[in-house]
């Protein structure tokens, strides 16, 4: 790469960083004050683009029209953000940590369908910025004037934010709340108002980031999820709550991507390295490296040792064998009274159930949230497929070995992950998952790349759907039983002890990290088992089995069922899988309906479905007694 090219690519990276910074700054601000991981932040960005598109059409393609549209769109999105806080989130601040994530996930579904309804499915290409549609020549290369403007806007917004935070009473409150949430409550500040205003400002930033992209990016329905992943990465790499960190991280990632593209294909020692293919994953590689070296991001500080926001989690109740027996009998009888489809649906539910239980195992009792649990599900599935198709093993052997391949990866990834905690740990699991996904996605010779692998059918004696149903029930059932059994063993109790008080655990001679590592591996193995059962039930497997959306589905299932209950994850997996399947059949706008159903559950049962039912049952008994 020549020097002028390098310079231009640096400028490209800076221009890309601008909007990314704004979205991330909003996300960081909201997390800092409310501790909510706002999954809907990408949707707000998307709304910014759509809003700006429509407003420009309305106000005219003049400089005044364009810029008023951008500003108005940003504030309109701000109002949407405030409404989300008032209507939904305010009701569930007392819920267990991360439960709000479920609500924002539902909001994503709703916003996507609302956008589809309002703006249609076709991509909407907005106008160029009036008066700025020319390109500027730098060292013989052309760069759009608008890109240069974006490079300036990023730091300007940072400056304005800094003024807002440093010079106003509101800013002082936000900073105080970021450092110590309980303190603000104690100071007699109206917490609801503060949270609403923070959501408003965060959403304005997301909307602004989106609206400013209208000359560079067509408004389309996929933006929400592409942006949210990037924004999470930037926020964490920069350090949660650090605005300069967010800018630094956005620039770092923007420039790294631009350089990967700029390098293109490089021949080194007779080998072609296609750097442009790295663009897919470079941000996650950066995040992984940063978190391993600096556990709190580039400019982040270790969070003040605050106790969990809600009340202490309740003790888990062991399942009663009578209940289990009833379920076993029912599940055994299903194929006798129903068709293949019910069996197929129940196999899916069993796989996702085991997947969710394995996620819950580390997330609930062990207190290690994972945003990348699908990695092990996908690895188990792919290991089964690769051992069958590439290594030529019999199906039975491929199936039994698959979970151990997932375990191997969990062993390596887990070693790094258990060194972190909280959201940082979650994001490191995500980084590993995305790196795994991108390898699966691109290693054509081994995994058939984006196409996925086909022809992964079970051995002849299992080919019959009913037989495979029993096979799946036995293995998933054993997996779930094993994990539940372990939860009530000394090992499982140690995990809960380590979550409740790492300090006390160490003081009575417990190697908390070692136990967490072992738990991570066990959970990964069981997720791998679920993946293997899944792959052989479908006959094919594609990279989506290891994708972010699969990880998110797992989180949704656990939270929906109730993270503080034992059976919640299974119920969550069942309800979510069944709902999605049933709703998709009934209506074109199934995503919105699914989102609304989840929101309803969230508001009615802040402890999750099982938690909520238990509470109702408890009240009922009290009344009778």
């Amino acid at each position, binding site marked *: 790469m020549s020097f002028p090219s390098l310079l231009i690519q640096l400028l490209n990276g800076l221009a890309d960083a601008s909007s990314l910074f704004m979205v991330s700054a909003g996300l960081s601000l909201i997390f800092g004050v409310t501790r909510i991981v706002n999954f809907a932040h990408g949707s707000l960005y998307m709304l910014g683009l759509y809003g700006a598109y429509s407003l420009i059409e309305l106000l005219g393609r003049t400089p005044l029209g364009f810029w008023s549209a951008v500003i108005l769109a940003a504030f309109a999105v701000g109002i949407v953000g405030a409404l989300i806080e008032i209507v939904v989130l305010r009701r569930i601040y007392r819920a267990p940590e991360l439960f709000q994530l479920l609500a924002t996930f539902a909001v994503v579904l709703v916003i996507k369908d609302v956008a589809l309804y309002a703006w249609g499915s076709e991509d909407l290409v907005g106008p160029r910025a009036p008066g700025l549609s020319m390109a500027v020549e730098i060292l013989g290369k052309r760069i759009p004037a608008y890109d240069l403007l974006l490079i300036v806007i990023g730091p300007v917004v940072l400056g304005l934010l800094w003024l807002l935070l440093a010079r106003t009473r509101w800013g002082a409150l936000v900073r105080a709340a970021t450092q110590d949430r309980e303190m603000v409550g104690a100071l007699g500040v109206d917490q609801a108002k503060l949270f609403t205003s923070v959501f408003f400002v965060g959403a304005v930033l997301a909307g602004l980031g989106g609206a400013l992209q209208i000359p560079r990016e067509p408004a389309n329905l996929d933006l929400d999820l592409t942006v949210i992943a990037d924004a999470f990465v930037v926020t964490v790499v920069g350090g949660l709550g650090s605005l300069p960190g967010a800018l630094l991280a956005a620039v770092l990632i923007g420039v790294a991507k631009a350089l990967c593209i700029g390098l293109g294909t490089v021949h080194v020692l007779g080998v072609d390295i296609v750097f442009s293919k790295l663009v897919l994953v470079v941000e996650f590689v950066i995040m992984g490296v940063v978190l391993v070296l600096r556990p709190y991001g580039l400019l982040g500080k270790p969070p003040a040792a605050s106790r969990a926001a809600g*009340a*202490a*989690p*309740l*003790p*888990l109740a062991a399942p009663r064998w009578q209940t289990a027996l009833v379920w076993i009998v029912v599940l055994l009888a299903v194929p006798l009274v129903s068709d293949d489809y019910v069996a197929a649906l129940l196999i899916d539910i069993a796989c996702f159930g085991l997947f969710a239980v394995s996620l819950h195992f580390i997330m609930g009792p062990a207190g290690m949230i994972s945003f990348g649990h699908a990695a092990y599900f996908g690895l188990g599935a792919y290991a089964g497929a690769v051992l069958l198709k590439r290594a030529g093993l019999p199906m039975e052997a491929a199936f039994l070995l698959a979970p151990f391949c997932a375990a191997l990866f969990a062993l390596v990834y887990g070693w790094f992950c258990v060194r972190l905690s909280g959201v940082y740990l979650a994001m490191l699991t995500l980084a590993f998952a995305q790196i795994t996904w991108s390898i699966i996605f691109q290693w054509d010779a081994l995994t058939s790349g984006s196409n996925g692998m086909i022809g992964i059918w079970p051995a002849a004696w299992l080919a019959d759907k009913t037989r495979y149903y029993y096979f799946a029930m036995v293995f998933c059932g054993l997996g779930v039983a094993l994990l539940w*059994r*372990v939860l*009530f*063993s*000394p*090992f*499982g*109790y*140690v995990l*809960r*002890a380590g*979550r*409740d*008080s790492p*300090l*006390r*655990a*160490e*003081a*009575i*001679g*417990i*190697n908390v990290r070692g*136990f967490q590592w072992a738990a991570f591996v066990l959970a990964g193995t069981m997720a791998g088992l679920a993946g293997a059962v899944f792959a052989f039930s479908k006959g094919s497997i594609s990279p989506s089995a290891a994708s972010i959306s699969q990880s998110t589905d797992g989180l949704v299932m656990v939270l929906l069922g109730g993270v503080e209950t034992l059976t919640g994850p299974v119920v969550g997996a069942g309800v979510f899988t069944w709902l999605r399947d049933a709703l998709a059949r009934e209506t074109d706008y199934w995503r919105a309906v699914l989102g609304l159903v989840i929101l309803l559950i969230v508001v009615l049962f802040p402890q999750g479905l099982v938690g909520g039912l238990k509470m109702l049952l408890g009240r009922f008994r009290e009344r009778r007694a």
Partner: protein
Amino acid sequence: MSGGKAGAPVLLVEGLHKSFGGVQAVEDVSFALSAGELLALIGPNGAGKSTCFNMLNGQLAPDNGVVRLDGRDIVGLSPRQIWRLGVGRTFQITATFASLSVRENVQMALYSHAGRLRSLFQRFGTAMRREADALLEQIGMLDQAERPCGVLAYGDLKRVELAMALANEPRLLLMDEPTAGMAPRERVALMELTASLARARRIAVLFTEHDMDVVFGQADRIIVLDRGRLIAAGLPEEVRNNPEVRAVYLGGTH
């Protein structure tokens, strides 16, 4: 020295130093502690008590100095390893396992001591029940054995901590502000309980404390820290009458 009948001290500290960014937090502190003896470590805020404590329990590494437990140098060992050598701890802000019952908390410590935590399939809580109940009996918490620690009153949590600290049959008990946050009457009761257990089991106890009634009422000996240095050591009456100590406590800075 009272209580030094057994000869060699349980805990021997010599020339302990620690500085943070050029500020001397602990400077040349030495003392010894024998089995069955209650030693109070006192001093005004910022005197270096916590730093001193954390160097004994493995949370902090000293810049210099020797810490011997039964003659064995424990500098550089982790809190876990130090616990394995027979050191129990209670914390200034109680640290218990909130989602576990009182009995399970104590059992956790007992299991750990017995090396039985790695078991994957045995049901937790079936073993060591008698031992746990015996400890709970001693601290008067048996009637609350089934309650989760998350719902206990603060004073009760302190007692659970004490039971957990006793679970590994310690030679030495390190108690950081054991009575902080408790009602005055409870304080004396807890320390009397501690003292009787320590004497019965021949455990050496080092504790920091703000409540002078507790200190002078329960401690066999007292050492006084000020600005990282040891300014006095001796029997309660000796310390009470020490002019330097009086100056520190009554005259503020000097």
